[in-house]
């Protein structure tokens, strides 16, 4: 933890810190990102026959866009529940190191109780995490949890709202526009996953996944998502090891 700086932002109450967090969420670039992503997920949920309330609940309890996309498309395609569960679990491993990195920023050593950290841990997702790591160091330690919860509620509210927007737009729009809305999910995930793939191993896994996903489905291979992950991941890992040995 860095030494306390005199310029840290303080608030009159936890409520004020919470409100400042909500404001920060709505003014950040992730507001637009979430609005677009969840409009697309709303259209996807509509297309696969889920109810709008099911989607809203999934945004609150799952609160991870990749896991929600996997859940909706796997269950909607009639995959086995256990396959969908394993695919969701594999997609969510990244949350562990994120929570580990976030907690030291929230802990106001002597005063923080473990149960106060339960909510921020649940709220941990890419949008909230990036902004928390950027903004929290400038907030007084005793108000960080409230600010972080406000930030998260701001983001989650955005996701739930635009999930409904996408869902009902997909139901009412002419087919081509509804199709374009539906296309938002694969397109934005294609690009953001590529952007998050910084190491060679992740890039190789990304390309292999793009190829294996449709191929295994085309040949009617059972548990295709798991095979895509295992084959793509292990081959990429092998190449990564081989490159390191060769270098």
């Amino acid at each position: 933890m860095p030494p306390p700086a005199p310029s840290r932002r303080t608030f009159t109450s936890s409520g004020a810190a919470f409100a400042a967090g909500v404001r920060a969420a709505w003014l950040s670039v992730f507001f637009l990102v979430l609005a677009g992503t969840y409009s697309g997920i709303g259209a996807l949920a509509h297309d696969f026959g889920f109810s709008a309330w099911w989607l809203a609940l999934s945004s609150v309890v799952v609160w991870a866009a990749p896991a929600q996309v996997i859940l909706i498309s796997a269950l909607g395609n009639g995959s086995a529940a256990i396959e969908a569960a394993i695919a969701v679990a594999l997609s969510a491993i990244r949350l562990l190191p994120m929570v580990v990195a976030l907690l030291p920023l929230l802990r106001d050593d002597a005063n923080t109780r473990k149960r106060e950290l339960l909510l921020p841990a649940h709220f941990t997702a890419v949008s909230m995490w990036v902004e928390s790591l950027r903004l929290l160091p400038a907030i007084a330690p005793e108000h960080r949890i409230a600010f972080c919860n406000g930030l998260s509620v701001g983001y989650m509210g955005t996701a739930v709202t635009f999930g409904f927007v996408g869902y009902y737009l997909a139901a009412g729009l002419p087919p081509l526009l509804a199709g374009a809305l539906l296309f938002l999910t694969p397109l934005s995930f294609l690009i953001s996953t590529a952007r998050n793939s910084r190491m060679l191993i992740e890039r190789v896994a990304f390309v292999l996944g793009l190829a294996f996903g449709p191929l295994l489905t085309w040949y009617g291979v059972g548990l295709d998502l798991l095979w895509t992950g295992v084959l793509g991941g292990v081959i990429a890992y092998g190449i990564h090891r081989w490159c390191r040995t060769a270098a």
Partner: protein
Amino acid sequence: MTTTTTVFDTAGAWPYVLLLLVGFLPNEIWRALGLVLAHGLDEDSELVVLSRAVATAIIAGVVAKLIVFSSGSLDSVPLWVRVAAATIGFTSYALVRRSVFVGVAGGEAVLLLGGFLFGR
């Protein structure tokens, strides 16, 4: 391309049970573990590197399947237009300041134009 038919029964309480068992639990377990472990995790350990690769491949697989085996209203846009739109969107992202917004806008523009000209 084939239209995906929904095999999944979306009526009643069952979807909500699946949401908790298949969506919430396998996702939340990692947040809970993060809370318990809290420190002493090496982000560069071999297991973390491998699991990140597996997760990346799964998400890429889901994305490619959504593009290739489109369902519902997206099915009226020919496969080659969908693939072209994704390719051009990705290329414009890579060329223009690695901007996700530019990539998404470019891909959507191609999809709308191609769907308008060649769609059913």
